[in-house]
């Protein structure tokens, strides 16, 4: 803070010179020893302590008001009531978004940073998929967006035989060693400043080529400040060797390393699971879990409408945030016309949404599914009754009317004078035969 008065800049004063020869400023002080007003003002401002925060608002809440409460003393009433302690309203550790719009905006912002390969958004993104929903729509979208931002895309392929010519393709199958592969990746990355490296099977990367994940991560994220995206197929089973029985499974290790984890699901399955949970039924299982022999992939796998994925963002602060998103199929209209020499134009607008914003998930389809399921169950029950019973268990309308007309004893007891007690109220009808003897018992 610079304090200027009377054209004096106090910061510019050579204080050492001033202290060694005070005669320089002697003229500033008046003959009678009084200081000029501006100097007093300046001194006040310097001496006054700067308020640190707003201390007046801080109230200390003692656990107990005083020590007397610690000692038991016999209270005359015999009942000792605990004096309510003053509690502050619980302070929330993190600010939460206030409205739904803010919440959606926040979640989508996090997602689009990762999808668009923004710098340092997520150095290592792990995509966990299975046969029910492959990660390819998601990775294709990530690559498309990376290319639209002129980022060098490198694919380390263990499974894909051909990719788009705009992508730098490194075949990793066919007996290539880990060292050679790393070298190739390094060469491919050094072409451009920023890169996106996609490994299409992390399992094979670790198993077949013996690359340590840490080394690759160090190469991609630390040395080139780029982004690594890895796919792990959940349904490929890890080998179990006796010599590494205590080592963590690969998937656990990747999940530990990853800064963002996407878990892919088929939209049809998510809808079915929701319909089941709304009826409190057990969630259906899909794919290899289905149990039918010979079934490899379930019928509604890889839903063409889009891909559902649960994302776990691990923020730099250490706070994890988890949301479920829906990425619909990409259309040409989502991207602008590509510039010459570019494969993909720029993205017009983020089209990934939260799963709650998907109409099919949020309302009518699911509800109608639920209803139809409920109807099916009920109609089954109705027909079951008809079929399985030899008795006619239903009643006619007339019988129902008569049943409704019966006044039960407790209704009578609730009248003002207590009614007539426990007397059985019965109106004799035509066919009734009053039996005296029976009544006497």
């Amino acid at each position: 803070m610079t304090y200027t008065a009377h054209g004096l800049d106090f910061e510019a004063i050579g204080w050492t010179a001033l202290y060694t020869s005070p005669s320089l400023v002697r003229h500033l002080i008046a003959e009678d020893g009084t200081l000029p007003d501006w100097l007093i003002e300046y001194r006040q401002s310097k001496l006054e302590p700067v308020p640190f925060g707003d201390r007046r608002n801080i109230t200390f809440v003692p656990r107990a008001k005083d020590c007397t409460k610690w000692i038991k003393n016999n209270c005359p009433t015999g009942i000792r009531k605990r004096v309510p302690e003053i509690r502050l309203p619980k302070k929330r550790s993190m600010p939460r978004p206030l409205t739904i719009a803010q919440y959606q905006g926040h979640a989508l912002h996090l997602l689009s940073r990762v999808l668009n390969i923004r710098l340092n958004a997520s150095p290592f993104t792990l995509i966990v998929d299975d046969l029910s929903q492959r990660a390819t729509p998601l990775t294709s979208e990530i690559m498309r967006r990376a290319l639209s931002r002129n980022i060098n895309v490198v694919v380390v392929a263990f499974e894909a035989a051909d990719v788009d010519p705009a992508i730098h393709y490194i075949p990793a199958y066919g007996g290539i060693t880990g060292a050679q592969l790393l070298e190739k990746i390094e060469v491919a990355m050094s072409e451009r400043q920023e890169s996106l490296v996609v490994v299409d099977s992390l399992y094979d990367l670790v198993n077949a080529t013996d690359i340590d994940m840490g080394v690759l991560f160090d190469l991609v994220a630390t040395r080139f400040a780029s982004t690594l995206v890895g796919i792990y197929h959940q349904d490929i089973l890890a080998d179990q060797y006796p010599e590494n029985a205590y080592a963590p499974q690969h998937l656990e290790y990747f999940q530990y390393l990853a800064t963002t984890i996407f878990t892919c699901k088929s939209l049809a399955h998510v809808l079915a699971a929701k319909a089941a949970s709304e009826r409190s039924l057990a969630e259906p299982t899909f794919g290899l879990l289905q149990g039918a022999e010979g079934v490899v992939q379930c019928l509604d796998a890889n839903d063409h409408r889009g891909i559902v994925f649960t994302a776990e963002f691990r923020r730099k602060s250490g706070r994890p945030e988890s949301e479920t998103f829906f990425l619909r199929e990409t259309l040409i209209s989502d991207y602008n016309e590509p510039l010459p020499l570019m494969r993909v134009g720029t993205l017009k607008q983020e089209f990934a949404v939260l799963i709650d914003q998907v109409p099919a998930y949020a309302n009518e389809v699911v509800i109608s599914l639920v209803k139809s399921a409920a109807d099916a169950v009920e109609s089954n029950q109705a027909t079951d009754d008809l079929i399985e019973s030899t008795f006619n268990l239903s009643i006619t309308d007339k019988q129902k009317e008569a049943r409704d007309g019966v006044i039960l004893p407790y209704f009578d007891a609730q009248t003002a004078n207590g009614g007539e007690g426990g007397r059985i109220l019965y109106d004799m009808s035509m066919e009734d035969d009053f039996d005296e003897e029976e009544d006497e018992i």
Partner: protein
Amino acid sequence: MSPSSRIPPLLQPCIRLPKDKSILLVTSTLGASANWLIIRFICDALSSTAKDGGLSDEINTLGEGGVNIILVSWMQEWEFWKQEARKGGGLDLDRAKREGRMAFVDGLRALFLPDGGEKNENIPVTKTTQTPPVRTLPGGIPARGPAAVPARTTPSASTIPARNLPEQTSASTKQGHYTLCSPDLAHLKSTIQTAVAHLTPTSTSTTTTKTLLILDTPSILLATTPTISPSSLTSLVLTLHTTLPHILVHSHADDPLLSLSTPPQPLELAHHNFVVKVAHMSRRVLSVRVLDTGVARDVSGVLRVTENKVGLGDLRVKGKEEEEDDGNGGREVLYYVKGDGSVRVFERGGGGDG
């Protein structure tokens, strides 16, 4: 009867090869064999020179070129395929082989049969082998042993190749017929590559020849040769895929091979991982299984077809105008293999003549 008319209309979209490069996976179970389906693939590929139906538009635009076939079989012999093709598809595979449309790589005789197939082709198969004899039941479903059975012949697999080398040279003189004499993958690769060289280009106008490579149960190598890992097998498939546009892998998907016992056995793990990995790589998965509700007199089994349209690194986006959606990818049909080898394919509930 023209071969293409042997393919039921409902089956047509399932066995039509996709336009671009693709890997297809066919799985079968012990009760429901997929040999009839493979025959239909061969049928469709070989018959696509004919102008009438049964050929995809893409092939038509490539000129009159059909699709050449390399069949690599570890579980069946040439004789079996020849008979099945004649019965089921009305095809003469011998002629196709002579014309250079087809090549056959025999992975069974030299590797797994005790006599190495030195005797006459027809007789020894049923007489001396440890593998179950290949016969066609009256119902038209070929009976076949489980994949694990040939594993018992593993010791012989290592001894046979040495004394069988002359056999291979004589076999290669036979047009388009090759014999694998070692379970080694490099040998398999080179054999397939020589087979590719044998095939004649189907059309003179185009430079790209379409070739369909059919690998019939390569997973048997996982059982017989423990040094082969599932990933090395899939790498081989991918390496071959760089030159061959279409690869069909047939594998077993029986529960004992896919679901794990505790503790998991290496073969279970290897087989499971192989099938799952090929399924991940493949564009279309065709699974054949028995009827869930039990045996029926007029239904042989269920065929389930699922598609994975988007490949990794496939950056093409769909415009609004090209709406060629055929449902949600997956569908199921029932099929019935008749005694004469013909196949009826129909929807559930549509048991009429189809």
